[in-house]
Structure formats: C-alpha cells, structure tokens
C-alpha cells in the first residue's frame, strides 16, 4: 500500500494543475497567517495602550469620594488572543469595551462589526477560513476522480491482476489525498508557530494540537467519502456533484439553518424583557441611594444594634457604604439569576447545535476550531464572568472604603487619597485554561471521531463491492 501511496504522491507532485493550486493555496495560507498575526499584534498594542491610558487616569485620581469613584468607574477591554489569528471566532461581533461601575452591570459594547458596513459574511481571511471552506473543496477535487479514473483507463483491472487488493487501492487513494490536506494544515500551523515562537506555551501547544486533530479528522472524513463515491460510481461527475452537494449542504446550508433554529428552540429574552425583569427584581432589594427605603431601614437597625448605638451619627463608620454594598450584593444576586439564565440558554443552544454534528461534521469542526482557538462564545462568557468578578471586588473595595475609611454617615464630601486608588488592582485577564473547558468540546471531538469511523467503514464496506470494470 505504501508503494501505491508513493505512486499517488508522485502523480500529485507532477500534476501542473495541482502544483498551481497548492502554490496558490500556500500563498493564501501564508498571507492569512501573516495578516492574522499582524492584526492580532496591532490589536494587542491598541489594547495595551488603551488599558495603560485608563489605568493612568485611575491612578492619577488625587482625592475622590469612593462612591464618586464607583460611578467614575473603569473600563475593561477585551484582550486579543494569540490563537485568534488562526480562528477569530465570535470576536468581531461581541464588542470590545465593558464599563465597570457601581450599581449596574454593563454589557460589552462597540463591536467591530458595528463600526463599519458589511464586508464579509464568512469573516476575515484567517487560516480557519481557508482550512474550513477552501481546503476541503481542494481535497474533494483531488479525490472525486481517483478511483473512477483508474477504472475508466483500465488501470484498476491491471492493478488487481497484479495482485493489489481493491481495498488497498482505495485506502491508498484516501490516505494520499488526506496526507495532502495534512501537509497544508501542518504548514499553516508551523507558519503560525514560527511567527509566534516566543509566546508559545504548553497551553497554546495543547490547544494547537487539538485544533490540528479536529481538522485532521475532518479532512479524513471528506477524503474518505469522496474516494468512496469515486469507487462506487463509474461516472466521476456523479461523485463530484454528490460531494459538491454535500459540501454545500454541510458548509453553507446546515450551519445557518441549525444556528438560526437553535436560537428559536431555546429562545433568549429580548433586551426590553430582560431589562424589565432585572428592574423588577432589583426593585425588591435595597435602594442604595435612598435613605428612606424600608429595606434600608431594616439594615440600619441591624447595624445600629450590632454597634450598640442609637443613631447613625453615633456610628464610628459610614453606614452609607454598608447600605450601598448591601444594595450591590442584592444586585449581584439579581445579575446572577438573570445572566445565569442567559448563560444557561446559550449553553443549551450550544449543546443543541453541537448535536447537529451528528448529521454535519462541519458543525463539529467549526465548534472545535473556535473552541480550541479560545475564541468561541464559551470563552467569551468566561471572560465576562472574570470581568464581573473583578467588578464586584472593585466596587466592594470602594464601598468598604466609604464605610470604613474614616468618614461618617451622610458625609459625601469625604475623599479617599491617591494611595488608595493606586492600591485598587487593575483587571488582569486570566486566559481560560483548556483543561477547564475541554469537556465542552468532547461532544465535537467524539462526533468527528464517529464520522471518521463511519468514513472508514464505508471505505471497507464499499470496496468489497467495488466493480473492477
């Protein structure tokens, strides 16, 4: 069989058309990795500059009331991700800026997509665009004629008479085409690694390997299926049209249909419904700004009792800070409930979408590619959770300063000094570790593996019935 694979490769290497296609593809891949990297770097620079600018503003606060500072707030920018130069995922639609302030949990705003008119429905020229959409087509074009050509020319008959097993011939064809895909995939990953050599860590390596594995499985599925059709049908045009049809349905048709459908199956609330529900729940809590609020009064009594005093003026602390923190904590519960519900709906949507991989392995590939590149919605949600966690610490620090920093209740003119503001830590994004989110992508990998086994079974079963003439 290796002899046949070698022979196939000799043919592939000598084919002028293939040389042209390979060269063009490699060029496009090189350009995509280079430009992807350029964009990631320029984003990283912009991110660092913006972050530094805002931090400098924060640290330059000479003196400010802590609650005033909570309203002054800060901003968190979504950092660029090294692997997003391979697959950008949801980055361009999710917004880049998140305001962190007291009382309210804001949302990411100012997405890249909203800052210009439509350009590309399928995203930027990232490696994933070429690896997901174009390379599979090249593999189909390489494989659809592979066995039928041998039949038509009579070579298959000769090969079988020479003692070659039809199954070996079919496997040799599949592996040759698959290897071609793997070579281009490897070159992409290697080019990417070369560009980012200093930044490569164990985490990035493991993610890249999983990224590689997903594509390798998908390419085998496509190569195997196409060779199978080529072996089953005498007419190569039928094999080509069938595979083109499958490619269209898998790549263009079903992802859109399923993605749109899962959003209908597991419906997200409209912004207005969501805001109204949040507002209603929030109104049941303490009004941090209103001293006359009944629930605030209860808390006041509790604190007075705790400190063994009769009035707020006797308190050694500033009750306003405590009330605002209590309000904040209630708000956090409301946020957890409503955003938790949103995240659950999104998770259910994702699970349903992943199941569509049963009939469309492209969906599994797309999920895995985005996931392993750390640019899917799950990673985005993880980022949002980190920001929210930071927001809570940030506001608590300010409220605590207001309460215990030395001011008395009702004194809104009291100001914390610059040393305090400098001591408030900046947001530091901890990239999500693959190990912690890997189970979310197991379904995609399993489905890709199942499809791989299915393609292999088809090849074994199909070639038993192969007609030599």
């Amino acid at each position, binding site marked *: 069989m290796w002899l046949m694979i070698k022979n196939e490769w000799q043919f592939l290497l000598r084919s002028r058309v293939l040389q042209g296609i390979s060269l063009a593809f490699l060029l496009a891949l090189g350009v995509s990795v280079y430009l992807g990297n350029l*964009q990631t770097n320029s984003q990283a620079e912009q991110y660092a500059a913006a972050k530094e600018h805002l931090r400098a503003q924060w640290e330059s606060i000479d003196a400010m009331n802590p609650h005033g500072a909570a309203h002054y707030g800060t901003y968190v920018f979504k950092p660029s991700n090294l692997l997003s130069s391979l697959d950008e995922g949801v980055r361009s639609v999710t917004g880049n800026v998140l305001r962190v302030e007291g009382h309210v949990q804001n949302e990411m705003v100012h997405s890249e997509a909203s800052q210009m008119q439509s350009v*590309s429905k399928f995203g930027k020229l990232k490696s994933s665009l070429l690896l997901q959409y174009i390379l599979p087509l090249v593999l189909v074009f390489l494989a659809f004629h592979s066995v039928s050509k041998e039949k038509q020319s009579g070579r298959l008959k000769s090969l079988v008479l020479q003692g070659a097993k039809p199954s070996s011939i079919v496997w040799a064809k599949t592996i040759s085409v698959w290897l071609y895909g793997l070579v281009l995939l490897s070159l992409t990953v290697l080019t990417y690694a070369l560009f980012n050599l200093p930044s490569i860590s164990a985490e990035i390596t493991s993610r890249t390997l999983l990224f590689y594995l997903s594509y390798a499985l998908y390419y085998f599925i496509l190569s195997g299926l196409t060779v199978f059709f080529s072996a089953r049908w005498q007419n190569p045009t039928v094999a080509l049209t069938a595979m*083109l049809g499958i490619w269209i349905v898998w790549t263009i048709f079903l992802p859109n*249909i399923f993605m749109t459908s899962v959003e209908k199956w597991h419906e997200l609330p409209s*912004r*207005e419904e969501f805001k109204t529900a949040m507002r209603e729940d929030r109104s049941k809590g303490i009004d941090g700004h209103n001293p006359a609020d009944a629930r605030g009064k209860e808390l006041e009594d509790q604190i007075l009792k705790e400190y063994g005093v009769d009035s707020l003026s006797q308190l050694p602390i500033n009750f306003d800070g405590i009330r605002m923190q209590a309000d904040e904590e209630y708000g956090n519960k409301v946020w957890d409930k409503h955003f938790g519900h949103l995240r659950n709906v999104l998770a259910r949507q994702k699970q349903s979408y992943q199941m569509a991989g049963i009939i469309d392995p492209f969906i599994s590939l797309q999920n895995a590619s985005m996931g392993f590149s750390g640019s899917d919605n799950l990673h985005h949600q993880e980022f949002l959770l980190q920001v929210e966690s930071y927001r809570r610490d940030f506001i608590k620090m300010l409220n605590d300063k207001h309460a215990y920093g030395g001011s008395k209740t009702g004194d809104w003119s009291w100001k914390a000094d610059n040393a305090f503001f400098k001591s408030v830590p900046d947001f530091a994004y901890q990239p999500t570790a693959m190990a912690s989110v890997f189970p979310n992508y197991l379904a995609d990998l399993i489905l890709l593996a199942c499809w791989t086994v299915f393609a292999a079974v088809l090849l074994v079963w199909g070639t038993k019935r192969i007609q030599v003439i």
Partner: protein
Amino acid sequence: MSILDIFLFEWKHFSRNPFKVVALLLFLVAAAYGLHHGASLYHEQTATIDVIKTQAAEERQKYISYFDEGKKGPEDRPWIDLTTPFWAIWYNGIYHFKAPSPALVYSIGQAEQYGFYKRVTFWASPYDSDMTQEIANPERLQTGTLDFAFALLFLLPLLLLILLYNLRSAEAEQGFLPLIEVQAISQNTWLLSRVAFYVALLFVAIAALLVYGAFLTPVFSSAPAAFGRMLLFSSFYLLFWSVIFYFIIRSGKSIMGNALNMAGVWLVFVFLIPGLVHQWVSIKKPANLMTEFIDATRDEQEKLFNQPDSVIQAQLDALFPEIVDSPVARDSTKRNLAMNRSSSALANELKKSSIGVIEADNQTKNELIRSTYWFNPIAFFQNQLNAISESHYDHYQHYRDQIQRLIDKQIRTMVLDTWNGVKVDKEQFLHYNKNLVP
C-alpha cells in the same frame, strides 16, 4: 430552433435531472426559511417598539396625573418637581425608534448589530450602551443569519453553478458537440438560450420568493419601492453570475474543469476577496476601543464639572447666548440650580466632539470598503440589499444622527426654559411631548 423550443427541451433536461431539481428545491426552502426569519425579526422589533411606546405612554400618563392632582411629583421622591422644565422634560419619557422597514423580510443586514430604540435624555448619547445589539447568540451572529439575502448572495450562485456546470461540457465530453454544431445552429445562440432558460427559471423563482416575502410583512403597502429595488438588484446579481458562468462554460471543455472553475470563482468572490478586504480594513483601521468617547464621558466631564462656576457659566453663555440676559441669570438665588441642570449641555458638546472622531474613523473604514467594490462585488451587492431593507450602517448612522439632534433639541429646550423660568403646567408638559417626541 426557436428559443421557446430550446426552453422546452431544457425544461426536460432540467426536470429529468434529480440532482438539479433537488438543488432548486433546497434553494427555495432555504430562501423561504430566510424570508420567515426576516419577517420574524421585523415582527419582533415592531412588537418591542409597541411595548415600549405603550410603557412610555403609561409612564407619561402617570406623571400627567400629578398635575391633575395638584402635586409636583411622586411623594417618595421629593426632589422631583414636574413644574420645572428639567423634570417635566425628563419624565416625558421620550424615545426614538428605528422602526424596521417591512423590507427587513428580505435582508436582515446589520439590524442585529445595533439597538433600535433609545430613551432620549439630556445625558444620553447615540453611543450609550443601550444602543448595542439585541441579546443574541454571538456564534449565530458570527455564523451568519440565514435570511433571504444570504440565500440570494451565497446560495444562488451555487445553485446556478449546479444548473449550468455541465451545459456544453457534457456534450463536449461525450463527443456529440460536433453533432450539435453540424445542425447549423450558432453555438452562441444555442448555449445562450440554454443559459437563458435557467436565468429565466431562477428569475421566476426569485420573483415568486419576493412576492411571498411581501405577504409576510407589509412590503406592498408600506415599502413598494423596496420590492421593485430588491427585484432589480436580485436580477442584476443573477445576471452578474450568469455572465461569469456563461463565459466559463462557453470556453470549458470538461464538466470537471467547469465545476472547478465555477467553484473557484465563487470561492474567490465569496470568501477570499471579502475576507482579504475585511482583514485589510481591520489592520488599516483596527476596531475602535472608543477611548475618546470614554475620556469624554468620564475624565473630560469630570474636569468640566470641577471648573469654577464662573467658567462653566461662561461656557454656557457661549453655547446659549439667549440665556445671558434671561430672568434666572439675573436672579442669583436660582442661577446655581439652573447652571447645574444645564451642565448636561456642556457634557453633550464634549461627547459630540469625541463622537465626531469615532464616526470619521468609521466612515474611513466604509470608504475603504467602498473603494474595493470594483473587485469585491459581493460586498457591493450585500450593502445594496442592506440599503434597500434599511439595515445598512448608513441607516443606523442616520438613526444615531437623529438621536443626537433630538438630544440637542431637548437640551436646548430645557436650558432655555430653565433660564427663562418657565413654570410647567399640564399644558406645557403636553406641549413638550408634542414638540420633543419625534
């Protein structure tokens, strides 16, 4: 052979090829699904707008009732005094909507990337966080929405590819092209007529889909021109691909070669060129992190309000020369409150200047994209369709401009009436509503 004869025979060719028939049916199903999706978004947005309008009207009514009851405002919030222009305008609950065009049924465009309702207040800005998109799954936004425009822009060329790829090349491959040539018909006429059959077939399919879509939303009654323009651009688009594919099949000699060339052109136009342009624009003009706007709404504003009163007053006087000799300006007991309430006008000016920078940046990106239209036809057609369905960037920009004008108008009214000491009664409250609600 008459063209009708060729059409009739081509119908046989088509109808007896299950692969082609299934491809057409799949396209029709996808396009109809897309139309329903567009219609559902139209109805959702319309319903949301109705709900907000109702809520705003109810809230307004609640505040009007205070006038009837002879109260200044809610008792639990004593600081609210509806007899002052500031609170009367604030509680008029003024919203501005971007009502969806019925043509949204055809192209969702960028409608899901922006907010479509906005509470307009003195402190509002068109770049507030509530102007962001509806809650949606970002992966769906990224994968793309299956609307009619998607079916038209991306699936139609594939359908055309499937319908046309073996015309002439099948005859050439099987060796009976000479037999056809010998029948004395011009090759061009023969091939053109056959291609024309499929173009006509798809034209009818598109027209039927557009009519179907027009029944899902009130296109004919509310936006009849959109229907005509959509049909026109769809036809241009169909013609664009037909011409490209015609030249490929005219010069191609093998089915595989044709399929390869047609798919190659499709890949280049659909994936490579737009992807490259998108990447290029992103490198040339990276996503704006809005630091100018952040600075304007935070630091600059902070600095502004920390200035001495005399400086703030001077700035207000420069902005509204009418208030210099106003009754409140002459009354030192009321001046400070009026100045505080008018401060939003200065903050608004700060925000406007930062927005100018951001929008100029966005316009540069749009110009960059437009400059690629001559080799990036899909982006051209995509944006044309978005423009027809009023879901193009420019329409949302126009919406933001309208919001800004409303903010300006609201602030101006509030400032002038505050400084002129206008006492708001029920009639004046309603007058604000009439004047300030778009």
